[in-house]
């Protein structure tokens, strides 16, 4: 396999079973609906089906820290058209976390629907439901709140200092040490890192600071609720985690799950921010209280100020090695700013180490430790990369500085120390997501090739260290290397159901939550491949807590690998049931154990599926391997449903894996620094990636391109600016600059795929890894061009210029 066109190369390493549907860039199953603007997003459905719904708006705190002295809603309530006003006085007081994660929940229970305290500018104070958005907006202005303002913690560095204001005096359950503003703490040791550092011939220690940034999905958080004819509360929500949303809302509002349903329609982008239960509780409660459908659509400003952000981190990174560059010690300390609530505080911080340090498994002595601290600033949460992005910013820049110190080529230094096929790392086992991890051995990796092809594509040999100058502009090249995971091993569980229709088509329902990634498409491809049919024979429905089986949701780069595993198992199980009827019709023997045995994802990857020596699927028919006879699947369905030994041909299968095979990547960039203005321009970007078998190469390319675009924005332009009291001052897409079409540099994606034996059809994940490269690769390129090492992100003209001036001074 080798595809080459401008901006995209797809090469292959290793041998593959032949496939018909998997590995092909088939049309996205929802593609034609989306390009014609079909009303499929949450607000579209609300507008179409519930024109008389109530509209909700949220009153947010103008101060960073303090108590609500009094709150008077009478004037607002008197406004015609106002139906309901919610405050801490008339809402459930359950403590919970807004983080939509598995159970038991690893984030502290530091949140209530409303509280008497406010903890950041943007915190919830009240919510209004009214007949129109305008009335709700007017009503917000009539709610009279008097605050008793208190000193605030506006810098993570101050949070643990003696005498610092305490963000959560109520000492929430699950917070590590709220008396010192520590939401979460982690400390894992392998060997004796301080001794190893002291004994190392060469050491380096640096500190990096990353910044507040946001996902900015084009569709803001939107949800509505209504009561169905049987009295059930139905929440339609732009969520990445329908089951976690149902579980959390059920607990907060004390509604039995039998009376609560969460439906996920099409989602206008998530990138992690919709792994958070931000408005689902409000619309459900509004509907319970008013009996009317209630909707909330966050404004863009609310999305910036009150939704979720990326944890800013200050990272101390130390490496010890010998003079030849063989790593011995890796020490990483993280101070993570979780903002006013501890959403994902422990797990994001854990990933900062667990998804980065195993990449350099030659180090024998490793310590990863950190504190996630509360501040009176916007709330951090899950964001594509999930802590690894910040970890790589520190690790990959420090490695380049170490290479300079050793007088070595940065690529050579990485090659000496990187993890290879057949190897593991003690970190995999020592550190999981907020708890102990699971030992892993790398079974597939094309990382050496990725480094070589990436270097070639950027022109590393010709350009590195040359500092080509054009007037006041100087060029440089830089690179970085990465791994991520494929779901959380032994934690993430997905399930899928498949049933056969009489015409030989199949209905696939799954909990896997397509948020725009194309998971409905690639999971249908996997099913079609197993079942020997074309894509039009698979009808897919994803994510409805009543209608589809369970899935943890769309996060942790889990869908392709974990949900894919469930779909492959379900397809194999339903296929085996079809084989059993075929055997009856052909009067052939088939061992019932082969039919009922739990199928394995790995079958046909590394070992033959035993049942395939009796029957196989071919173009909608079952073919007997022994007799060569054929019977159509449609005939099988008619017989099974209407004629003989009648039964439903259907199955539900689940998948949980002890493996989380990492995808790998090498990013390369060429930049030009304008020494007069400090502006950094990216001239070319190369992302070389191994994600196992790409189930749909065009969609894989899109995942990488989107992540790279977001990564470059994070590295160069995207940044929260704050006023004196922790108020964000650039909360619009005009003032917060994401990359536009003209800003996006020429970018080449090079896929060098491998066959991952534990993955569905050889696949690993790809969603997150692409966002991790831009900060270190561009930072390293700036270093190459100018000799300046920037320790704070983003690399804005102001910062670059200041560094250039202090260097020449």
């Amino acid at each position, binding site marked *: 396999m080798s595809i080459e066109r401008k*901006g995209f190369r797809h090469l292959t390493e290793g041998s593959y079973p032949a496939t018909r549907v998997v590995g092909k*860039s088939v*049309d*996205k199953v*929802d*593609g*034609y*609906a*989306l*390009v*014609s*603007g*079909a*009303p499929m*997003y949450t*607000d*579209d459905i609300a*507008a*179409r089906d519930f024109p008389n719904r109530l509209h909700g708006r949220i009153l947010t705190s103008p101060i960073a820290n303090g108590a609500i002295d009094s709150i008077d809603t009478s004037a607002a309530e008197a406004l015609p058209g106002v139906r309901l006003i919610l405050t801490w006085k008339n809402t459930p007081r359950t403590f919970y976390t807004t983080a939509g994660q598995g159970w038991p929940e690893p984030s502290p229970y530091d949140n209530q629907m409303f509280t008497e305290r406010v903890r950041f500018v943007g915190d919830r104070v009240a919510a209004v439901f009214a007949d129109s958005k305008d009335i709700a907006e007017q009503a917000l202005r009539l709610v009279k709140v008097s605050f008793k303002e208190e000193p605030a913690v506006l810098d993570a560095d101050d949070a643990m200092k003696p005498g610092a204001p305490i963000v959560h005096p109520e000492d929430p359950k699950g917070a590590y040490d709220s008396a010192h503003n520590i939401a979460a703490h982690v400390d894992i040791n392998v060997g004796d890192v301080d001794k190893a550092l002291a004994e190392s011939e060469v050491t380096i220690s640096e500190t990096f600071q990353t910044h507040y940034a946001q*996902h*900015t*999905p*084009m*569709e*803001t958080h939107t949800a509505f609720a209504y009561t169905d004819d049987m009295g059930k509360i139905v929440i339609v929500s732009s969520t990445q985690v329908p089951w976690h949303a149902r579980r959390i809302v059920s607990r907060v509002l004390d509604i039995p799950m039998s009376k609560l349903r969460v439906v996920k329609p*099409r*989602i*206008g*982008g*998530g*990138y992690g921010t919709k792994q958070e239960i931000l408005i689902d509780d409000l619309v459900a409660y509004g509907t319970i209280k008013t009996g009317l459908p209630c909707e909330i659509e966050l*404004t*863009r400003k609310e999305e910036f100020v009150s939704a979720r952000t990326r944890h800013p981190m200050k990272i101390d990174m130390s490496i010890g090695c010998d003079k030849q560059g063989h790593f011995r010690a890796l020490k990483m300390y993280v101070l993570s700013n979780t903002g006013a609530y501890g959403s994902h505080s422990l797990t994001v911080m854990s990933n900062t180490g667990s998804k980065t340090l195993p990449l350099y498994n030659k180090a024998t002595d490793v310590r990863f430790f950190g504190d996630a601290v509360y501040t009176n600033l916007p709330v951090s949460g899950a964001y594509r990369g999930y802590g690894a992005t910040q970890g790589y910013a520190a690790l990959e820049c420090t490695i380049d500085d170490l290479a300079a110190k050793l007088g070595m080529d940065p690529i050579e230094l990485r090659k000496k120390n990187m993890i290879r096929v057949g190897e593991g790392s003690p970190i995999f086992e020592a550190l999981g997501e907020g708890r102990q991890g699971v030992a892993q051995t790398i079974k597939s990796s094309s990382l050496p090739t990725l480094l070589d092809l990436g270097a070639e594509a950027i022109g590393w040999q010709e350009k590195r260290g040359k500092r080509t100058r054009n007037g006041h502009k100087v060029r440089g090249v830089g690179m970085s290397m990465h791994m991520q995971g494929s779901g959380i091993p032994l934690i993430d569980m997905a399930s899928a159901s498949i049933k056969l229709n009489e015409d030989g088509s199949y209905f696939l329902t799954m909990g896997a939550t397509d*948020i*725009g*990634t*194309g998971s409905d498409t690639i999971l249908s491809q996997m099913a079609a491949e197993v079942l020997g049919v074309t894509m039009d024979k698979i009808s897919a429905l994803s994510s409805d807590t009543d209608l589809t089986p369970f899935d943890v949701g769309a996060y942790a780069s889990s869908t392709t690998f974990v949900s894919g595993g469930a779909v492959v198992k379900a397809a194999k199980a339903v296929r085996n049931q079809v084989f059993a009827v075929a055997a009856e019709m052909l009067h052939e023997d088939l061992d019932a154990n082969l039919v009922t045995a739990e199928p394995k994802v790995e079958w046909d990857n590394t070992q033959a599926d035993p049942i395939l020596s009796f029957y196989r699927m071919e173009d909608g028919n079952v073919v007997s391997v022994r007799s060569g006879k054929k019977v159509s699947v449609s005939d099988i369905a008619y017989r099974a449903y209407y004629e003989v030994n009648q039964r439903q041909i259907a199955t539900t299968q689940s998948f949980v894996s002890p493996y989380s095979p990492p995808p790998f990547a090498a990013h390369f960039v060429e930049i030009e620094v304008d020494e007069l203005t400090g502006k950094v321009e990216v001239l070319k970007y190369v992302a070389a990636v191994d994600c196992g078998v790409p189930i*749909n190469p*065009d*969609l894989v*390319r*899109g*995942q*990488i*391109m*989107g*992540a*790279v*675009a*977001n990564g470059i924005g994070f590295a160069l332009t995207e940044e929260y600016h704050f006023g004196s009291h922790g108020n964000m001052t650039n909360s*619009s*897409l*005009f003032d917060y600059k*994401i*990359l*536009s*079409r*003209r800003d*996006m540099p020429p*970018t080449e994606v090079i896929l060098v795929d491998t066959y991952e034996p534990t993955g569905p059809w050889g696949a690993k994940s790809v969603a997150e890894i692409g966002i991790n490269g831009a900060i270190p690769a561009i930072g390293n390129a700036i270093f190459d061009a100018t000799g300046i090492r920037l320790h704070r992100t983003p690399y804005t003209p102001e910062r670059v210029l200041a560094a250039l001036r202090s260097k020449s001074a």
Partner: protein
Amino acid sequence: MTISIMVNTVERSFDVQPDEVLLDVLRREGYLEVKGSCHSGDCGACTVLLDGRPVASCLILSAKADGHAVTTVRGIGDQAHPHIIQESFVKNGAVQCGYCVPGAITSAKALLDENPDPTEEEIRLAMDSNYCRCTGYEQQVEAVLDAAAQLRKGDKK
């Protein structure tokens, strides 16, 4: 006040408030293919054609469209009869979450109506105000180049 707008070649009249923007009126009247996002003219999701020119419908007062023609993405093509640009977006993997896509396709249509053979740079310029957070833009640009080539071929027939 009552206004008349030719929406997707159909003459319609709407009762609107003087301060209502076109986006809100279109969505209220069932043109849900027009998506709202920033409501401040920054992102391009709500782009429609006003007499053939792309505008951010969140910034245009609906009264300004009185007596004019508005084309939404559904007026360009629908699922049963997709326009070549729409088909090309699907075929080139240019759609992920799809929320920006109606606006992006509408801008692309305006460009190709005026310039049937645009360069890559002209495409990026014409669609620069259409933000997309999913795709990194490249496949969308390729989709427009591809559609332009197909449309030119069609013209020659």
